[in-house]
């Protein structure tokens, strides 16, 4: 990725998506819409896995979140999901409330930044 450490979104990725296809900007708008619509389900999967103490479920949920975040250029959310997935895969105990707060915090920041893009 090409974003700075604190950037919520990777501008180079967004610019590339913006210019993809016949109608500049249309694909990005569609992808943002799909990501925003899917976000509650992605977060519900994370929360359910944390509540149930399922490391396998948490790894799967974080994996899905990571993929969705990567393609929209949500670099910080992607990094957080990657860390959660790695810890869950390794079976490292995670404090549910801390993990939940971290993922929700990054998702909220991502949604805010994406809404600013297409507003």
């Amino acid at each position, binding site marked *: 990725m090409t974003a700075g450490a604190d950037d919520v979104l990777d501008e180079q*990725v967004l610019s590339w998506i913006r210019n993809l296809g016949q109608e500049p900007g249309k694909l990005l708008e*569609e992808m943002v819409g799909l990501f925003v619509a899917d976000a509650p389900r992605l977060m519900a999967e994370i929360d359910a896995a944390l509540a149930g103490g399922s490391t396998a479920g948490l790894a799967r949920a974080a994996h899905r979140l990571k993929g969705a975040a990567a*393609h929209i250029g949500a670099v910080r959310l992607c990094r957080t999901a990657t860390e959660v997935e790695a810890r869950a895969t390794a079976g490292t105990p995670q404090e549910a409330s801390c993990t939940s707060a971290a993922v929700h915090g990054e998702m909220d920041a991502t949604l805010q930044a994406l809404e600013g893009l297409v507003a």
Partner: protein
Amino acid sequence: MPILRSVTIETATPRESAPRRVLVADDQASTRRFLRAVLEELPDLDVIGEAVDGMETVAQVQALQPDIVLLDLSMPVFDGSDAIAGILRVKPDASVVIVSGMDPEYGDPLVGPGVLGFVWKGLPPFELLERLRDILTPEGSAAR
């Protein structure tokens, strides 16, 4: 005086081959949309359908008979090598390209008969496009 007529001579042009038909299988709607857009940048490919889990992937392969399947390894119902086996059972000449967020050390060993390549989903989109170009187009293959 002779009448000169313009005559159109049709030259035999080689018949262009039909585009290869692609099925995109991924449980994320935004990823499927993204992959469709990326594939549209590559020549001679036609995305003919989508699937959201392993079972639907195999059913769609049977119904649509795609030449190529872009396959996520981590999908609901069944996934990974089970999905690959199911695809190749119903269409033995299909070519699978794995597009997954799994680490390459997990995906690379699955490349073999019927599986053209593994593309790590975490790549920046422009690198992901080049990786797919490398695997799916003659230009890419020739450059290897």
